[in-house]
């Protein structure tokens, strides 16, 4: 007998998990299917998770779903209390404090790492769902979805791993490269002009070194955004966020800007890391092994190699713990050390032993932990107008929803709001036992229409703009080109601003965006600002940046012999651009034809538009440890 469930959620990112939790909160049975080995292994973010308080209307925040104790229970990284925008030109930097924009209508924004956060969400949502007879099934990849011929509202879901099963309602939370959307043709695959490409590295940095460097405390954190020459003439910018004991440093660029003038994604990240301010942010003390004398007997070489690796590891771990109040406390409580001084002395003595015995050098450099990439849907341009199909509701990235306007980057919170609304719509359908498109889909769609986030994806918020302009008021008018000069003049008066924005909103985002989101905004104006007003920043060293191959070697993969991507036209212009735009160099050109080697694929979706693109089978492919 085919198993049937009231609600099935496809995809266990932050949006899908919120849907599961919210359905359980309402006493409803739901099952979540996630392709990764466990929730959190396939998700990438920047990322700052916001909790918002819009002036009109209500959004569902993370605490509405997971409870008011979210901040005391959940493993977020740092509360972000400082938000800066830096305009760069070579070694000159002009900075604008955007903390007010960060706090705009926000209860808070905290930095997060998706693997840790989604694991916690999964634990909470899974437990609640089990009480209702549902739960999370990981390592299963949904490959097709159909409907019973006589019952339009019973979906039949097929996976690569399990026997088919049925669902009365489906929530598609399968991310930006949604196969559910493609299978049902509920929307087209997103096109480059609707997307950003995000590429990020996690950099290891001891807690208290970070706090001193960024001017933050244990319970605070900083976010730094970058535009100007770091963008290599692309529309978008870079970011550095402080986590508990690591930094997230990455870039987000308009995909069509990359298509026009392709740059390799890793080069874009590297350029950010090489900016003197960023180099100084990420630097740390790093041990460099001395080459072992090849003339020594093999055994002796091995012994030395082993001893040095072990000592460096101990030195690194102990030093990392030493620069953290909790780390020191743990070491002292374990009884191995008597005092902070004791730990410091041990770190020093290991270092000396390494130097004197093994000629290990200690230099200034940085330590990269993980490289990741993902495309991001630009909600302004691609939010689904009809986010449902039969008895399927689309949420989060799968629905193309997210707010990306200048420094405002919000996808996680938007997905959670969607998910709560979808869960409510499904719960209502379960109560009435009516799962028709009219009853379920339209209700959900109306609920989304009422969400303040939807409005933010369609209109300019004049209050936000004012905060932004206030922050930038020190910028001399003449730097900003004529086009902006006019705008600024309008904006400086309250009445005119109201009129101007009213007019702009009539014009519509679509016509307005190309003006605002332009190279002028992201590249030329910042460069001029930095050149004319910027302070000189120098870096004391050159970060030794790993190659793509080294970065790939650090990632965890479960190799699938069968490729999850098939190239359709190996000679198309689009595919040829992938040779440059794939963040892990999976494409190469041989005799004018593009060849794919899928093994290093990080499933970012950059190549999805013109390929037969699927997520790998359950448990296969990349598993992020940070995300």
């Amino acid at each position, binding site marked *: 007998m085919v*198993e049937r469930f009231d609600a099935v959620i496809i995809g266990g990112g932050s949006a899908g998990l919120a849907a599961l939790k919210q359905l359980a909160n309402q006493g409803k049975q739901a*099952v979540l299917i996630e392709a990764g080995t466990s929730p959190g292994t396939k998700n990438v973010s920047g990322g700052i998770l916001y909790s918002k308080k819009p002036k009109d209307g209500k959004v569902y925040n993370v605490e509405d779903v997971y409870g008011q104790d979210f901040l005391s229970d959940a493993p977020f990284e740092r509360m972000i209390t400082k938000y800066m925008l830096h305009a760069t030109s070579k070694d000159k930097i002009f900075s604008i404090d955007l903390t007010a924009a960060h706090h705009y209508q926000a209860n808070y924004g905290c930095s997060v790492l998706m693997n840790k956060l989604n694991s916690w969400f999964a634990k909470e949502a899974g437990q609640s769902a*089990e009480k209702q007879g549902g739960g*999370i099934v990981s390592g299963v990849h949904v490959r097709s979805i159909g409907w019973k011929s006589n019952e339009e509202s019973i979906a039949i879901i097929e996976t690569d791993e*399990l*026997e088919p*099963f049925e669902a009365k309602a489906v929530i598609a939370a399968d991310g930006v490269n949604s196969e559910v959307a493609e299978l049902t043709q509920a929307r087209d695959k997103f096109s480059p002009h609707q997307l950003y490409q995000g590429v990020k590295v996690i950099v290891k940095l001891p807690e208290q070194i970070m706090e001193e460097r960024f001017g933050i405390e244990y319970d605070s954190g900083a976010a730094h955004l970058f535009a100007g020459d770091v963008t290599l003439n692309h529309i978008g910018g870079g970011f550095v966020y402080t986590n508990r004991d690591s930094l997230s440093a990455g870039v987000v660029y308009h995909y069509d800007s990359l298509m026009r003038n392709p740059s390799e994604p890793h080069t874009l990240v590297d350029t950010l890391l090489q900016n003197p301010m960023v180099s100084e942010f990420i630097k740390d003390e790093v041990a460099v092994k001395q080459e072992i004398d090849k003339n020594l007997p093999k055994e002796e070489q091995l012994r030395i190699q082993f001893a040095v690796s072990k000592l460096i590891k101990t030195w690194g771990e102990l030093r990392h713990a030493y620069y953290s109040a909790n780390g020191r406390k743990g070491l002292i409580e374990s009884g191995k050390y008597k005092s902070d001084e004791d730990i410091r002395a041990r770190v020093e003595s290991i270092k000396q032993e390494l130097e004197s015995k093994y000629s290990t050098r200690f230099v200034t450099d940085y330590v990269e932990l993980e490289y990741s990439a993902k495309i991001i849907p630009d909600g302004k341009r691609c939010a689904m107008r009809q986010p449902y199909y039969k008895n399927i509701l689309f949420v989060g990235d799968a629905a193309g929803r997210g707010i990306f306007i200048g420094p405002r980057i919000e996808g996680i919170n938007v997905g959670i709001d969607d998910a709560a609304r979808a869960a409510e719509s499904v719960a209502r359908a379960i109560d009435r036992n009516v799962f028709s498109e009219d009853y379920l889909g339209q209700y959900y769609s109306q609920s989304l229409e009422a969400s303040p986030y939807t409005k933010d994806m369609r209109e300019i918020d004049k209050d936000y703009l004012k905060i932004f302009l206030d922050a930038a008021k020190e910028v001399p008018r003449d730097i900003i080109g004529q086009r902006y000069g006019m705008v600024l003049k309008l904006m400086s008066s309250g009445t005119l601003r109201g009129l101007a924005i009213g007019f702009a909103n009539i014009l519509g985002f679509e016509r307005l965006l190309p003006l605002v989101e332009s190279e002028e905004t992201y590249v030329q104006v910042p460069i001029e600002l930095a050149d004319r007003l910027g302070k000189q920043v120098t870096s004391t060293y050159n970060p030794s940046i790993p190659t793509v191959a080294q970065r790939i070697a650090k990632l965890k993969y479960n190799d699938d012999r069968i490729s999850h991507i098939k190239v359709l036209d190996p000679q198309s212009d689009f595919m040829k651009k992938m040779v440059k735009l794939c963040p892990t160099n999976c494409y190469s050109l041989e005799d004018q034809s593009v060849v794919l080697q899928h093994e290093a694929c990080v499933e970012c979706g950059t190549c999805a538009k013109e390929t037969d693109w699927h997520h790998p089978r359950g448990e296969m492919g990349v598993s992020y440890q940070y995300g």
Partner: protein
Amino acid sequence: MIGMRSLNVAVIVKLEPDFSEGNVSYNADGTLNRAETKSILGPHSAIASLAAFYSKVRYGARITVGTMGPPIADAALQQAQMLCDADELHLYSDRLFAGADTLATAETLKAGISKMQGGIEGMDLVFSGHRASDGETGQTGPQTAWKLGFPFLGNVIDYNLDLERRTIRAKRLISLQGFYDIVEEIEAPLPAFVSVDPSYQPNFNTVSQRLALGRYRKEAAERSSNYKQYLKVFNAQQMGVDPKLVGLPGSPTIVYKVEKIPKAKASRKSEVIDGANPEHIRLAAAKIHEILSGAVVK
């Protein structure tokens, strides 16, 4: 569930020396130095535990894991509980059991099973590993089955139960007329004794099974971190065994001496081939061809 009562399942496991690098120690006479060698749940016992766990996930079985051994053997029970979410752990421990061969062990295990939920009459399935890594005889299982009077199904790689008809349908890996890896499918009435092949892999292929799997795994992790709460230790008297049938007195065989097999002299010759040199590759290919054509039966 069978009728109103739950399906009763036993797993017989063994604490075995950890043969991985650096953990083994031998006595001067070549026998294992048990005191010095680290112990873990034997790999075959681990597979038996996984096979039992399948019956929990699929059929809601109630599982008891039993082992005969010294008090430290409770480590094996804890590890087994982690794998199969056992409801009860039994340790059969008595000096009287020392020096037991497979027959005497079977006698003790039979007495142990009689102490499990429902006793021997109420037992539905007993799982054991293919064999132990240290004894290598593979006889304990069949002998225990024989003592219990249960049909014995060896080398099982997959099984399902029909609870209504009270039968087990199992796939066994056998060798037949010189061919290996032949799969035989058989049906037997319950109760039955199943020895699990090392290649056994549980397969959970419905959503409900996966959900149950997740729940039981979590329960298993919780239980095994408090395994002492589930542990019952029995001595010979409590088990009501006949001292003549267990331990050294009950053992018709003893291990006299274990010989290290001398390393055979290698008779291989090697030639270095330069992969960048096409001439070398051609020579190597010719050599392979020569060897293969000698072996291929046309």
